[in-house]
């Protein structure tokens, strides 16, 4: 059993991966593109390091290489996995994260920091409290901030599709899993009480689900994020409920199934554009073996409060590799 932590670094000045292309709305391209380009950059950094030391073998910043020794022989000219990933406390960091190089340029109080946590459909719901704690800790460590201003939680299996009037709202009422969502929320409330998230939010809750949810929770969400970008007609019941309850309806354009299992295998695999970390039985390439399950993704943004400038934006994704 290996835990894997994928990260993008700051993508806001990262070029093409942040540009939305026509016809790719609701897509997870931003995440996959920026992960891919961060892997590539880390590998190139390694190559440069090797070139500087006249081809000598580099030792990946002193990190141990317990789980990845098998990958020392590289395939297709890729650098040794141990050189650009890192293993610490049982977590494989892909790529290695240089925490000391990060953080915000000014005092955290000058920023509006938002984290949006996606619980992925393949992961066990009972583990979500742990996921939430880990995800938020990574974000706070990356930004070197004591808390986020808003933590939005996105549960799997929910969407806001269809015409934006009553239909989407009606369909939404039967989506998701009320029980699991209610069981998860206390852990989120705990993060709030611990002072790590000043406000909480939900994503993709229609009027019925939201009403049921509000009935039962202690710390109420201040925000409900919905994907209505191409439609200005908020379903009237939702608009009314939000107004009555003082909940801000915000727009997003995220894909709910943001990191499907197959996509993650492609990202880490031996194929074209893959990071070359996973073993490939067909080609006999060595590497990590086992069943790979993406568990959560967290997207974070830090916006300078009175200047509207996005200074930092990125993703972490958590996955688990079960031994065969």
């Amino acid at each position, binding site marked *: 059993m290996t835990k894997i932590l994928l990260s993008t670094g700051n993508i806001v000045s990262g*070029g093409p991966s942040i540009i*939305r292309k026509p016809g790719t709305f609701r897509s997870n391209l931003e995440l996959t593109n920026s992960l891919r380009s961060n892997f590539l*950059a880390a590998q190139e*950094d390694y190559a440069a390091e090797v070139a500087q030391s006249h081809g000598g073998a580099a030792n990946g910043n002193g990190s141990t290489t317990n789980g990845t020794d098998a990958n020392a022989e590289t395939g297709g000219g890729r650098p040794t996995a141990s050189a650009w990933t890192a293993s610490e406390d049982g977590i494989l960091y892909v790529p290695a994260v240089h925490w000391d190089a990060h953080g915000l340029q000014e005092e955290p109080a000058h920023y509006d920091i938002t984290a949006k946590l996606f619980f992925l459909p393949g992961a066990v719901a009972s583990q979500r409290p742990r996921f939430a704690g880990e995800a938020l800790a990574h974000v706070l460590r990356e930004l070197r901030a004591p808390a986020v201003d808003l933590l939005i939680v996105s549960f799997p299996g929910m969407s806001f599709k269809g015409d934006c009037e009553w239909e989407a709202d009606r369909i939404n009422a039967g989506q998701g899993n009320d029980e699991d969502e209610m069981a998860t929320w206390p852990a989120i409330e705990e993060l709030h009480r611990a002072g790590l998230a000043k406000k909480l939010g939900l994503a993709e809750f229609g009027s019925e689900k939201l009403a049921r949810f509000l009935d039962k929770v202690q710390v109420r969400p201040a925000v409900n994020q919905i994907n209505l970008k191409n439609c200005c007609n908020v379903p009237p019941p939702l608009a009314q409920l939000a107004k009555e309850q003082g909940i801000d309806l915000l727009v997003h354009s995220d894909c709910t199934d943001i990191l499907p299992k197959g996509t993650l295998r492609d990202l880490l695999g031996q194929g074209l554009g893959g990071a070359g970390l996973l073993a490939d039985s067909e080609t006999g390439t060595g590497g990590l073996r086992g069943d790979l399950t993406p568990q959560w993704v967290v997207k974070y943004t830090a916006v300078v409060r009175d200047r509207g400038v996005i200074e930092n934006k990125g993703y972490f994704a958590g996955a688990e590799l079960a031994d065969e």
Partner: protein
Amino acid sequence: MGLLALGTALDWPDAKKQAHLVRSWGIKQLLEIWNKAKGKERDAMLWGDEVEYLVVKYSKDKPEVLLSLRQADILQALASDKSLSKEGCVPPLPDGSRPQSSQPPPVFHPEFGRFMLEATPGKPWGIEFKELLEVEPNMKLRRCIAKDHMLPNEYPITLTTFPRLGSPGVFTDPFYPVSGPRLRSQFVPDEIANPHIRFPTLAANIRSRRGRKVQVNVPVFKDEKTPWPWRDPTVNYDPHQWPEDDDVRNGAAPDNFIHMDAMAFGMGSCCLQITFQAKNLTEGRQLYDQLSPLGPIMLALTAATPVYKGFLADTDVRWNQISKAVDDRTAEELGEKPLVNDRWRIPKSRYASNSTYISEDPRLRPEYLDPDLVIDESIKQQLLDGGMDDRLATHFAHLFIRDPIVIFNEDLKELDLNKTDHFENIQSTNWQHMRFKPPPADNSIGWRVEFRPMEIQITDFENAAFSVFMVLVTRVILSFDLNFYIPIKKVDENMETAHARDAVLTRKFYFRRNLFPTTRASRSPGSGSGTSTPVPSRPPTPTGPVEAEYRLMSINEIINGTAYARDTTSEEQLREEEDTEGDDFPGLIPLVESYLDSVNVDVATRCQLATYLDLIRKRASGELWTAARWIRHFVARHPAYGQDSAVGEGVARDLVEAVVRVGQCEARGERFGGLSVCAAEGGGVPMLGRLLGGFR
């Protein structure tokens, strides 16, 4: 418009003698504020818009429309109404209450033209997204308050120019005869200018310094029945009242050009200007540079000026006309005579596109800079000695090649370093398409950048859309650290290109192919973070030839992106396109949308912003027309138009009437939709749908 100090204004021969003193005091004041303000940090993003109006006199049952010269009375009425009561101008909410606004009452300012008015918001805007939605209602409020302090038959309209300014006959109320001592124009009276001593002096001293009248010549639009060669029929070759009356006999009015001869023809144009406050000096310089290449693009996209002095012009925008209307260069400076008395040849008017980039950005390659830049070396040296860096010293040493035009005797008694009046004297009469503004003498506000090229639009909806768009573009530039640099000479070329009829659809502009860094910045934090990285840095990417960094693009491509432009371009046009496969440009609107996707915006705000972006998207793609195109169509289909380029009194009257009615409709909060509601007042406004689409 600059400072309105009172005093004794010097005539040119006397002013000229004091020019050096004003410049040297101006530089001392600049260094004072530089040393005070260079370390200013973390100023908030604040911004302001300026909307300029023409005041017209129009009645439904009168056959003519006139420019009202009651600016002073109107400003007086506005000033004496302390509360600027909004009662009549703010419709009550559905529950009967008055909407609360955080905004103090708007502020009204005089302008050069005595028929003009400028209005700004009561306090600067911030960057809260909800605040962006207050801009349009505030613009409507300003127009409404202005109207409330006018006579019932006077209207503030936002056409860039009055179509028959300077035409024979009566075009102002009250009427004044032409050819006064200040302007010496054969087309407009001296009374066309704001009577405050600053304005007539400005006009007179520009004329006097130049040694003849300004020559504002615009190519005439050749229509089916336009005689060719075309000779401006309104030019009088006979007058002998002033020495400058010889100008036309000496070839000032060439064939096929509409000829104008006074500052009022340029400075009487209305525009839409936006000023941004930067967080510090560095960011201000970055914004100045990065917005500069966008100038010509936004000029072409907002084109609204196809008529001058009663004739259709062959250009769509005001820019060059203003440039010529304030061109005070002597024959020596223009290169027409050998340099004897003057210090240098000067390639551009005081009103022109930028000549400098001022950032210390490592991405600024020396090849981008203007090789023909004229600077005053001794002033540059003073600035360097005073602690200013080379690049900014070069910028101000360039602005300070100009003479101050209006000097008040009272200001020459002693140098006051607690003021910036002498610095501002030179700075504010350098009308480039961007302006870099140091903080005021008391250092109370931050470093600012003014974006000046946009033409005013007919409705407040459009003016708000373009203002908000530019605000969002600045946020995108700073967030994504975009690089728009191209050589300044190419920006100059683009500025010329932007003048062409329908340039937005028919012309291409030099624009940078790749706005993003060539290597990822994330693993090695950028400048300013103050943290160093343990990650080994890759060797710097070799820089290719500058010419490979940019290519020609349509405005559709620049605004909407290559993919969108490909989908909205006719097959015929596509065949003519060079193959740009693999060279896709993302487009400014998709970049703005990517930005909005990354920040928290509520549903209602996002929808409103989407409407603004839609308007701009459709203007860029040609689905909607620019105001210039709409005005051309209005004229062309008017029964009184003879296909001979002449825009007669009847046509001009009906055009202004249409604009007044669109304004009334907007003020009442009614839909433009074919102006069907307003049509009850006597016929619809033709083709309005092509201008404003289904919006509002």
